[in-house]
């Protein structure tokens, strides 16, 4: 279980997180929604230790994230970044097998390549993509490669940062289905950030809305439409009028 308790984070005078409390149960898929610039990505990066907390605690299975062996901790995670974050200088298969070619999870090169091709197949990419470089792929293919990299080492916890941003509706649907299948198949705990309400309904077991630096509402995806919260209501229906201020 991932537990965030009273998490605060500011960048200079910009207080992004103002006491976030959230629990994500093992084996469930939690989707965090919220407007742009509300700190959703920062929240994920805090869990991974990429951003240092100002105050509060984050634990994974009751162990504070800053304690213990960092490599062993990170080996439990996979992450799909918003822009893919594929390494330009490496061919696709080496991107996917990156973790399997170095460090504690190191495998022989041939085995790592085989696993990479298997994971590429899992996300619907043919083996001939393996030797290409990221710059030779379309946005949708890059997202899939990034997804393959996130699951290559079969992590217990997977983070997805805006997995469908910039993709057409069909490709978004494909990615959503893949994420749902992979999370169910692997029994992984998933945290996803998205603005895409189709994704929310496809991926989520629970939904949390981040607004004003705090979790405004959290509940099962089935109750999202009857949340009774004006902020959630405005957000999920994309209404310009409501308690969430919009700049005109």
């Amino acid at each position, binding site marked *: 279980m991932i537990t965030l308790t009273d998490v605060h984070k500011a960048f200079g005078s910009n207080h992004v997180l103002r006491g976030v409390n959230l629990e994500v149960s093992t084996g469930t898929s939690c989707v965090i929604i919220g407007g742009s610039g509300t700190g959703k990505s920062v929240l994920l*990066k805090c869990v*991974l230790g*990429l951003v240092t907390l100002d105050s509060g605690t984050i634990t994974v299975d009751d162990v504070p994230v800053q304690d213990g062996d960092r490599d062993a901790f990170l080996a439990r995670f996979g*992450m799909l970044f918003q822009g893919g*974050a594929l390494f*330009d200088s490496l061919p696709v298969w080496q991107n996917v097998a*990156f973790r399997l070619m170095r460090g*504690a*999870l190191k495998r022989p090169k041939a085995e790592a390549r085989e696993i990479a091709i298997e994971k590429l197949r899992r996300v619907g990419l043919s083996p001939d993509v393996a030797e290409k470089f990221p710059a030779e792929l379309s946005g949708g293919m890059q997202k899939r490669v990034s997804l393959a990299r996130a699951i290559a080492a079969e992590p217990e916890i997977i983070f997805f940062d805006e997995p469908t941003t910039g993709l057409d509706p069909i490709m978004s649907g494909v990615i959503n289905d893949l994420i749902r299948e992979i999370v169910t198949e692997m029994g992984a705990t998933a945290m996803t950030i998205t603005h895409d309400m189709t994704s929310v309904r496809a991926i989520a077991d629970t939904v949390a809305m981040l607004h004003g630096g705090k979790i405004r509402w959290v509940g099962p995806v089935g109750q999202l439409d009857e949340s009774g919260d004006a902020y959630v209501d405005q957000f999920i229906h994309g209404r310009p009028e409501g308690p969430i201020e919009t700049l005109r």
Partner: protein
Amino acid sequence: MIGVLARLGRTVLGSLANVGRIAIFAGETVSHLMRPPFYTREFLQALVQIGWLSLPVVGLTALFTGGALALQIYAGGARFNAEAVVPSIVAIGMVRELGPVLGGLMVAARVASSIAAEIGTMKVTEQIDALVTLSTNPMKYLTLPRVLAATLAVPVLVAVGDSIGILGGWIVGVTRLDFNSATYLRNTVDFLETWDVASGLVKGAVFGFLVALMGCYHGMQSGRGAQGVGRATKSAVVAASVLILAANYILTELFFSA
């Protein structure tokens, strides 16, 4: 008045903080030399990028500088009937000063900019964050291989540049200034001492370290977007160039002051 002083104070404090950050960055980089894992493939790639691919620019710079130096010393020496010193002064000037400094500056222009742009782009596209989530320390994977490669490659570039610079002087000396080829070469060899060459190579190692360090540091500190990467690249080249010239003076004082 107080406003001016406050601004001045802020600038000084900011500069000192920056120096401190660079010193910590350098210390952390060097400390990774003692701690595995080591990324041999990345080191070899950096060696090719920094060393092998810089050879043409360093060689051409040295060739033209050696030739120009011979012409200048011949013209200047003629005032004192000392034209005969051309071979020895060209050799000493190249190996002690011009070879390492110009080689270092050319590498700074070519390498510091490319390292800063590459790492800066990796930072803004979250590739550095991705490295961390893949249990890979960016200092070990990106910084150490480049800094180590530059520290080892630039002295070799300096040695090659020294030779080509002396060759440039010889070509001009023999074809334009009517020197006898064998006499020119004998004078070059006779007047050069081992420490002349070695001091230049030590300078090269220091300059290589500074160039790669500045490239990596400014790349890692890069701001967002194209403008942020552009600013990081510019800062890397300016800082590396200034540090090379400052380090050159300090090393010359250390090596040659009476």
